[in-house]
């Protein structure tokens, strides 16, 4: 039996789900199988047939996934209130405050005064919508991503 055969053996049904995805760290784009059980990640396997990695994976990609379930994860929207502190709130209020803020700034200083920074860590769809938000929303090209730093 080759290593590949072994990895392709069906998992004994312990309720473990296997999800084929792409590693979330560097730009090499290694294919991985995320193993999860009861909605928690319990391990990551490199994909032997991943076009970028052919079964290889580094220390970050294989082991640094516990941040996903870290207690520090943001679970609710936050807005800064009169006391100067960030407070949990509903999506409706958070989106309204965010939108009003941009609207007010655009009215006061002009549409050129708003700037968008897209991420090199989000899926492409987020980057596309960030540039569309700026271009379709304000007619400017005041949009960048984090590739310069």
């Amino acid at each position, binding site marked *: 039996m080759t290593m590949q055969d072994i990895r392709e053996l069906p998992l004994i049904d312990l309720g473990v789900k296997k999800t084929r995805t792409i590693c979330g760290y560097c*730009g090499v784009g290694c294919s991985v199988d995320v193993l999860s059980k009861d909605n928690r990640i319990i391990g990551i396997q490199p994909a032997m047939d991943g076009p970028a990695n052919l079964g290889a994976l*580094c*220390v970050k990609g294989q082991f640094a996934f516990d941040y996903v379930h870290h207690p520090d994860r943001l679970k609710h929207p936050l807005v800064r209130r009169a006391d100067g502190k960030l407070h949990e709130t509903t999506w409706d209020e958070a989106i309204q405050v965010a939108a009003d803020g941009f609207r007010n700034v655009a009215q006061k200083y002009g549409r050129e005064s708003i700037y968008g*920074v897209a*991420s090199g860590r989000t*899926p492409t769809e987020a*980057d596309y919508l*960030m540039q569309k938000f700026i271009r379709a929303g304000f007619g400017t*090209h005041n949009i960048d991503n984090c590739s310069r730093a």
Partner: protein
Amino acid sequence: MSNPLSDLEKADVYFCIGTNMTEAHPVAATRMKKALARGSKLIVADPRLIKLAELADLYLPLRVGTDVALLLGMAHVIARENLIAHQFVAEKTTGIDEYIEHVKKFTPEWAEEITGVPAKDIEKAAIMYASADKASIYYTLGITEHICGVDNVQSLSNLALMTGHLGREGCGINPLRGQNNIQGAGDAGAAPSDYPGYQNVNKPENRDKFQKLYGRALDAERGITKVTALDRCGDGIHAFLIDGENTLISDPNREHTEHALKQLDHLVVIDIFLTETAQMADVVLPAASWAEVDGTLTNTERRIQRVRAAVTPPGEAKPDWWILSALANAMSIPGFEYDSAKEVFNELCNVAPIYAGVDWDMIDDGQYQWPVPYKGHPGTPRLHEDGFSHGKALFRVIGYRDPAEVVDDEYPVWLTTGRRLQNYHTRTQTGRSAGIEYLAPEEYLEVNPDNVAKWGLTDGGWAKVTSRRGEVKIKVKSTPRSPKGTVFASFSFAETPVNMLTGSGYDPNTHTAELKVCTVRVEPA
């Protein structure tokens, strides 16, 4: 990258410059090591004696920021030894005569004086690279994060053009991208100069196209870069929307960045943690993380791949596409009626010609590398196989410039920054991972053993590092990886904010900061 990652196993000679591949792109390095085990040769140019340098057949320890001088010296040798690929040059390039005349002045001896690399080794490297059948260039931020980042890249391009090492298997100019989707961010048009698919904003036909698509007038001129926007906070720029970037820690000159963000009337941050940047925001919107979303990523070899949700997000966290759509809808911006990431991706494919040949249902196995100009096209693993899209490639006449700061009596030490294997960027993720916390819990300054003694430091003791912009207290590690007179640290740790020190200058074309060079004073603390 001009060539696919599979070409990392196919070259006869590798020229790696400004890339700490074994730490920053370990899996790419693993693929290259296979070729080295079969007898391929490796040239490494790097100021630090990194692990990759230990694997090299020829190591060129250049002084920080002198890449252009090294590459001019190599070009001089290639011209002098007549190792030019005449047929390739005649068919596919323009400007060779002027370029050869230009590099005549820059002898390896001249380059030695600036770079510190022995002229003999510069000659050897040039001949190894030029005379190989398949020779490839790999680089990373060690090339681009300089005031002369564009000059560095164009110098590498000149070498590849004069030797014909482009458009073939095992060749090419290959920047390894640092973030899982930094390629996708550029592809999607998240840049001040380009609409999605690198359609330049200055071209009237592109403007017409997107005015129709987005249903409003769009500026004819390009926007400003993030660097310029931060400079203008409070004076022209009054609101920022930041998605998934810890700007405060990742950007150079932290004090300047913090001051800039404080000037804003309105700051909205979308992130998965309350990062140092999110703590400054007026509104923080909780995003679903990598393991919780469906979407696409494009890797360093332009391969479009699917990410799939394995678990559900905590609390009320939402995918970025949902958050941005909700925000746009609340502002009555038309065209944000999306129900899935699939709809967003398919819209991108419709508006970006490099993605025109794919859609969401075609990329399950990640088999496409853009450009995929039409349905039925197999994708483009290797660029420039049939020549260059804009006609003939141009040799650029480039001269050497010193870094923005050079050592002097007050700041006599070079500082260069970078990454370490275990930690990723500002540790938003890896800082919350138990295993990584065990492996690499703190930052340290790498100092040459001779300097440790001479500067009154102790291995494992504390040093105060001061630049023109700030100071940082940091532990000392005595190591020959740092050459004499040059120290190194990563910027990953918020508690050791090395980017307090950086920010000496920017490339005038790209506004990329010279994070790889600044000058400092190192004292016991």
